[in-house]
């Protein structure tokens, strides 16, 4: 079985579980939406602060949401000894990593589409240069998902993991928050030239996170 096919099997499994359990759509998505509303309460919408801060607020919301998505991605492996099944399946650990990362990235992208609508409608933001915006978003999402999956498997089965994962993941993804927010700002004001360097940075981060994850996932899955 090729790496891609094995990875898609794992992705398919995770997405099938989501389709049946609907945790992302019925819990994580509303959480993201309420975060956007909370920002509006915190920063008076009438003073134009929200509109100017929108790119950063959007990505902070995405980071918070991604923590829940990662937590969920490993919660489904805990019950009924699913993790042992995964380990004994004979699938290449790198493929399992890619599969889970892809599943989380796809769910995050879906959440981001809805949150983007929320930002456009609630914060009155206009997004002008769409191509760098989309590329930056995809690269940032892959970077966040891959990092999250590495820390997810690293802490799976540990006591206190719920409180530990945010502390471990958030400092590591600070460059993603920085790059994605700047790329969005540039796109919002219609200056794509300023967005491209950040797209490159985000892509480099995503590649590094995916490569690193493929490298160490086998060791971590065995230790967990």
């Amino acid at each position: 079985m090729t790496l891609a096919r094995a990875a898609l099997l794992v992705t398919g499994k995770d997405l099938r579980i989501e389709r049946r359990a609907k945790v992302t759509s019925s819990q994580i998505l509303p959480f993201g939406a309420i975060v956007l509303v909370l920002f509006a309460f915190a920063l008076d919408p009438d003073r134009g602060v929200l509109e100017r801060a929108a790119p950063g607020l959007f990505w902070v919301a995405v980071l918070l949401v991604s923590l829940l998505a990662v937590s969920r991605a490993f919660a489904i492996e805990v019950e009924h000894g699913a993790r042992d099944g995964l380990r004994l399946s004979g699938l290449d650990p790198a493929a399992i990593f890619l599969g889970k990362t892809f599943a989380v990235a796809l769910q995050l992208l879906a959440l981001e589409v809805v949150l983007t609508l929320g930002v456009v409608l609630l914060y009155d933001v206009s997004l002008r240069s769409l191509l760098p915006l989309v590329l930056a978003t995809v690269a940032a999402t892959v970077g966040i998902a891959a990092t999250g999956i590495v820390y997810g498997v690293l802490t799976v089965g540990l006591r206190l993991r719920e409180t530990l994962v945010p502390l471990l993941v958030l400092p590591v993804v600070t460059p993603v928050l920085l790059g994605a927010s700047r790329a969005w700002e540039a796109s919002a004001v219609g200056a794509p030239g300023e967005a491209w360097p950040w797209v490159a940075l985000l892509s480099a981060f995503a590649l590094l996170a995916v490569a690193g994850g493929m490298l160490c996932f086998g060791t971590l899955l065995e230790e967990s």
Partner: protein
Amino acid sequence: MTLLPRGATIALGWVALAALVTLTLLGLWVAPPDAVQSDAQRLMYLHVPTAWLAYLAFAVTAASSALYLWPRTRAVVWDRIAGASAEIGVMFTGLTLVLGALWGRPIWGVWWAWDARLVTTAVLFFLYIGYLALRRIPGDANDTAVRSAIVALIAFVDVPIVHFSVTWWRTLHQEATVFNPELSAQISGTMALTLWFGVLAFTVLYLYLLSKRYELAAMADELADVELEVAIAERIGEPVGAGVARVEP
């Protein structure tokens, strides 16, 4: 059990103490006040060595983590050094930030500035606080060591990316207002000597603390082993069936 021979650790402790007393004398009385920053500049004799020590400590953590992960060099000694060094690193990163803020207030007029070096140091602080939190979670010793080693290496790779992205961010959007070239004039003479002496003194202090912390970690491991043996011996000594009554439903 110990990283260095006992005598060497004790000697290091005394040398470190003598060096720190000398540094205090040099920094507070021998070195002249700075022409621009006057006495506030004396904080640099602590700030620069603590920052150096933090970086040194994290580099040692990364190197020993890599040595632990490499199957041929895997030994508990690397894990203990990694943990001990990270603890020292976090403490001195914290000190660096506090001393920097104390210096920044009179010189820059602000406690904190969103400069690349400051932001990177703050992220570094959080990365290794997470690392220490992970280490504290009880579990199989080897599992914990492998997990911690991977987290330490991720942190080590991440720091340059953070620094790069923050530098880029600040240079793309605003002029460097803080590191004005006129302010960071060349230093020489007694001031340079004091600074270098400070770096040396803190390096000796680092070696002493590392050795002591290593000893403590080894003792904690030994204690855990002894407690386990005692518990097993007690359990064996109990009459047959005695444990059954205590089984919780």
